[in-house]
């Protein structure tokens, strides 16, 4: 997996669909190009870009809240309308999981997305978020338990 794909997957965790994730990835790389001067140590480039990725995704979520407020149609709705029925069920299951992830507390959500979507190691997550590795493991455990409970609860509904 290239680093570009890693960043794309992390964005996918924060967004509803691949289109938004792709746009967000572009934004991140554009920001990284502009801020290249602020990178002091090339060895820290990975962590540096992951931090830009995380901050950009959080800004995106804030904008999304505003869009929901004004009930604007998102690209997500358009994609569902165009997808054949056979694929809708899996898509809906995936959307349920994503919706549940969005409901997680912020700290658990971002740890889970970095791990499950970005495939980052505990070390990489700890450096990106600026927390200890032990804390990463603890948050991941709690996030997984909470997510399982939420998704299972949704299925029962």
């Amino acid at each position, binding site marked *: 997996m290239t680093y570009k794909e890693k960043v794309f997957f992390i964005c996918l965790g924060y967004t509803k669909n*691949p289109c938004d*994730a*792709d746009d967000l*990835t*572009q934004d991140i*790389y*554009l920001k990284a190009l502009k801020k290249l001067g602020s990178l002091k140590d090339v060895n820290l480039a990975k962590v540096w870009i992951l931090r830009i990725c995380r901050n950009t995704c959080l800004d995106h979520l804030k904008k999304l809240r505003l869009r929901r407020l004004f009930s604007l149609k998102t690209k997500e709705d358009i994609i569902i309308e165009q997808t054949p029925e056979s694929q809708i069920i899996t898509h809906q299951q995936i959307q349920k999981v994503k919706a549940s992830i969005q409901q997680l507390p912020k700290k658990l959500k971002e740890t889970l997305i970095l791990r499950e979507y970005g495939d980052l190691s505990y070390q990489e997550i700890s450096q990106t978020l600026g927390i200890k590795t032990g804390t990463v493991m603890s948050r991941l*455990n709690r996030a997984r338990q909470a997510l*399982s*409970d939420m998704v299972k609860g949704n299925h029962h509904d």
Partner: protein
Amino acid sequence: MTENKRKDFSDIKNLIKKEKQKALVFFKRTDFATRLEKRSQLDEKSKTSSLGFFLRPLPAAAFLVIIILSTLIYKQLTSTSTYEKGIESLAQIMNQTTNMESLLPTRKPQVYELSDGEKGFAHLEWSIQRVLYCLHRESITDEQIPIIIFKVLQKNEKKDLDKLNFYGLEEPAYLNYEKEIQKLRNNNNYNLLFSKIIKKLQEV
């Protein structure tokens, strides 16, 4: 994590994996590098354009705030206090004041009665007339009235003061603002005078 929950989570993991696989197909179809380059070029263009800076919301808002603040500070620095404003207005409308005899207070104030009797009193009447007219024009509070009147008197008396200085005489005590303002506040005559002024204003 219990065994059941591990199983539940592995199902979730599989769904996430499917989502990622599908998304990757989409991502690989798009020409990421070319689009990034185009966006970077567009971004550079808008940066170098002279109006581009002002079209961005944050710099535009900051610029507007600076303009507004500068205007307010300038106005604050160049504006005069209410008291000076009152005196300025008095000076401006002085010549417009006509037929103000009806607004004169009926009781003669004693503090400013000069040894040069009638002349001093006439001077005071004229000053008070002007103040009354000014109060009518400007929205000045009751608390400010004695201070404004005193300043007007002080300004008028300056000519007399200059004369006194010319002749080497001492400054009269009543021209000391700090001392006299306290007397004004405590003086019953002036309290009566001002209440009459306010009453007359209301009639006018």
